[in-house]
């Protein structure tokens, strides 16, 4: 029998793919990024510290970490919605600051404009960039077609399901042809089935158009399924824990969820995010204080 494989073991094709990937031009370069917030009590909280990583062109990177590790702060800084305290962000070698359509963003809460139809939502950024109404409409319809919502072009957001709304949000961000697409737990509010479908759609879109994706999630399976590389953060302060090269070969399919590479990667992620507690006493404070609460003569004495 073979020895158990670990997440570091890559097949030759995967190894070869990563070598080629790393030769691609760098799209996003984050250098020494840090963020401190002032607390209302006058203290300071370090949300992010010394974050360094690069994302190559057309790469799919997932960011994952325990709650409170500053994932959302990181992506908001990258989108320009918050300013970093230290460090800099280079997009195609140019430093960036403030929000700009070359960094598209998809939010967890859809954030479609409820007063605009699907078509007009997608046209929003196109019109902002100074395109004429006719061109904007033409392009918008193409993007709507890409996410498979042509028949809903004239619907309002409240008439759509969650998954459809998020597809519109993706089309709206892609329509600006951003250099990188930032996604902040975009499927967090969706049910498992829709989520799986949406992951599939996203993979298809990513494979077929020139887009680099940075995707935040707290779902380990989602991260492994989607990502070329996974940036694992740790909490308090938010720092890079490890940058994992996912050994699952591309293109991905749902069958791979049980492949040895997939499971090995998941095991590693679990170790990183839920490290085994060293201090046994600490656990006791976080346990239910259960006593038997079933009447002695109850018909159903035990659930076993």
């Amino acid at each position, binding site marked *: 029998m073979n020895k158990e494989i670990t997440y570091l073991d890559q097949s030759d094709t995967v190894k070869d793919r990563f070598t080629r990937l790393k030769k691609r031009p760098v799209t996003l370069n984050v250098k020494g990024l840090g963020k401190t917030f002032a607390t209302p009590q006058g203290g300071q909280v370090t949300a992010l510290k010394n974050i360094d990583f690069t994302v190559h062109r057309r790469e799919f990177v997932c960011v994952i970490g325990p709650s409170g590790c500053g994932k959302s702060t990181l992506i908001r800084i990258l*989108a320009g919605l918050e300013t970093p305290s230290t460090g800099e962000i280079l997009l195609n070698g140019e430093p960036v600051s403030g929000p700009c359509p070359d*960094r598209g963003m998809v939010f967890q809460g859809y954030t479609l*404009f409820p*007063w605009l139809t699907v078509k007009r939502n997608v046209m*929003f950024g196109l019109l902002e960039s100074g395109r004429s109404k006719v061109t904007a409409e033409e392009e918008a319809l193409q993007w709507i077609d890409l996410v498979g919502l042509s028949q809903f072009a004239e619907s309002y957001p409240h008439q759509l399901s969650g998954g459809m709304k998020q597809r519109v949000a993706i089309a*709206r961000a892609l329509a600006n042809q951003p250099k990188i697409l930032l996604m902040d737990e975009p499927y967090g509010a969706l049910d498992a089935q829709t989520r799986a479908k949406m992951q599939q759609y996203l993979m298809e879109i990513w494979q077929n158009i020139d887009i680099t994706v940075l995707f935040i999630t707290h779902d380990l399976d989602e991260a492994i399924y989607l990502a070329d590389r996974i940036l694992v953060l740790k909490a308090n302060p938010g720092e890079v824990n490890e940058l994992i090269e996912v050994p699952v070969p591309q293109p991905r399919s749902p069958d791979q969820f049980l492949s040895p590479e997939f499971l090995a990667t998941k095991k590693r992620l679990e170790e990183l995010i839920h490290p085994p507690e060293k201090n046994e006493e600490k656990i006791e404070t976080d346990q239910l204080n259960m006593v038997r609460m079933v009447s002695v003569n109850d018909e159903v004495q035990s659930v076993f």
Partner: protein
Amino acid sequence: MLSLPTNNLFAVRKELAPRSRLMVTIMSFLLPITLWCLVSYVPFLWHPKVEITAPGDVGYFREGMLVDREVFDAEKEKLSLTQGILPEGNRANPVYLPAPHKVVEAFYTSFTTEPRRRSEKWLHESLWDSIQVIFWGFLISSLFGVPLGILAGTYDFFSRLFEPFIEFFRYLPAPAFGALAVAILGIHHAPKIAIIVIGTFFQQVLVIANTTRKLDKSLLEAAQTLGAKKRSLLFRVVIPGVLPDLYRDMRILLGWAWTYLIVAELIGTSSGITWFITQQARYKNFDNVFAAIIMIGIIGLVVDLLLAYFGRRLFSWQKSSNS
């Protein structure tokens, strides 16, 4: 036929069934009207007065006069001792509480009765005056209040610039400016419009600023990542985003403007529906007074229902909350 399933009527925060809903809406008008009818038509419920039909031997009684029941009984007792002719009368309500049918009649007759003096106005002219005062007052207030409110709700700078002073000023009662308004603007419509503006404007700025601030911030962030800059954030996101809530605010504020109308119309030369009401009260035509008051209510309600209807048409993109 009125079989309301009572156990479902009091479910906490549950909508009533459409049938029950209609029934309860009708009841909300029917209850006060029934109460009024009971007091008016059931003689022994209240009727504290006696309307004299025959004065008898009481020197100061006249036919049609209203006297307190105690006085009437006392006089009757006195006369029964001296064997005089007893006065006769029916129990009646005070003159200030006309019966419903009188008021319904007054709805018609108050429009058809010629004013007592040539200089006085017909009721429809008075009503038209009032509507004009409200219209101009609310329009002028909104012309300034809505833009200022949106600015204050959007930019912290304007919020800090306007709101502290407005917060102070809105506590000054609008009618207190009556004398000043007359001194500056004369005695006709202008000072009345000014009072409505003063009464509405300051509330309007604060209410609309608050509504504007309630706009989901993530919509602004999304717009920014799509390339929207300052001006288009305001005109393509903030304003369309708050429009339906703003419209609802305006409906409520219009109601407030009506409440200032009565005070406003007493300033300078009394005019409009208020003049009609005070004049009719002076003539003791309380049926007309009631009719006029109810007319104000009806106008207000109808305008509000119309605005609500147009609102639903205008903002059809909103998730319909109750239809």
